[in-house]
């Protein structure tokens, strides 16, 4: 039963439409006619609650990381995270910036890292293929890792941003 579900979910995945960094500029070519992501059964999805893949397109500033964690926690299981670009592995180009986090894997579990600045669409498609393989074999278990090691991820998150009791609704004051 599990296998059938994995097989089905590997063939119909929704990608969360969140342009977190500069890598997002390679997404329009992927969505549109030249590369056509829908050949893989992958399409963009507006809301995190119905999305399966979270593509971290490049560096995350602390301010974005807060929203990324919030979106990630809203996504339904099973969910997969792709780290797109060098910045997700160890800071990339912005390694000495005070505003960006270095290793995204410390804050949310990343299933596949793609090297490149920025990775070509070919690399993104190879990652999708690999992800489909991993799902079919039941290896893409980042979301389970997040649940099992929640304390670890949560501690790292708390180190870089504040997370009040009502944090999902807290927003900067309008002025």
């Amino acid at each position: 039963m599990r296998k059938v579900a994995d097989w089905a979910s590997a063939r119909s995945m929704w990608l969360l439409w969140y342009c977190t960094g500069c890598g997002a500029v390679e997404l329009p070519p992927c969505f549109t006619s030249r590369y056509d992501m829908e050949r893989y059964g992958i399409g963009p999805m507006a809301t995190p609650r119905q999305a399966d893949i979270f593509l971290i397109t490049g560096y995350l500033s602390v301010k974005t990381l807060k929203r990324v964690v919030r979106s990630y926690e809203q996504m339904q299981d099973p969910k997969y995270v792709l780290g797109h670009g060098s910045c997700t592995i160890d800071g990339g180009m912005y390694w000495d910036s005070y505003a960006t986090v270095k290793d995204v894997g410390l804050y949310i579990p990343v299933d596949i890292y793609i090297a490149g600045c920025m990775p070509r669409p070919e690399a993104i498609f190879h990652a999708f293929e690999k992800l489909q393989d991993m799902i079919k074999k039941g290896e893409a278990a980042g979301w389970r890792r997040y649940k099992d090691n929640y304390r670890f991820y949560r501690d790292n998150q708390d180190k870089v941003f504040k997370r009040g009791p009502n944090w999902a609704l807290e927003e900067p004051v309008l002025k």
Partner: protein
Amino acid sequence: MGDVVRKTIRPFRALRFLGRKPHTVRIPHEQHNDIEGEPLPTGRYRGIHVNDWDLCISCGLCAMACPCDAIEMIEVEGEGGKKRPEVSYGRCCFCGFCEDACPKKCMHLTSNHTMLDTDPRPFVFLPTPGIREFEKEYVVQTSKLCLVEERDGKKVVVQGKPRPRKQ
């Protein structure tokens, strides 16, 4: 009357697009070509690094030129005290300044463009000529990269061959 006919016929003009070949690149079954049908990426593409250890003089200029602090010169066991550049793809921005700075032109950025893994560790590796094996398929298998690990204060190669066997 003519207006009505024109308006009725107009939507059917879209049918002419049916006869056209779509310009979608069917990755991975199809090679990415430019407008004249030449394969991309070309030799100028800045992709995965290779470094010929027989030519490398361990000058460290590539590490000095790197804007991202991606290159570290490390002393590998069995190289007679010579230092070799170790590239971190967690930092690299593929600018190619290391290639420009290299006095022996042994550091080179190939047109291999795809490298992915589930683990961040293989992204820190020693560029070797072995990466040229993937020249035609453009995808680098991380399991064949040359990785080192520190054991008893010495950097030991734990995976991959630093030099290809001479024929």
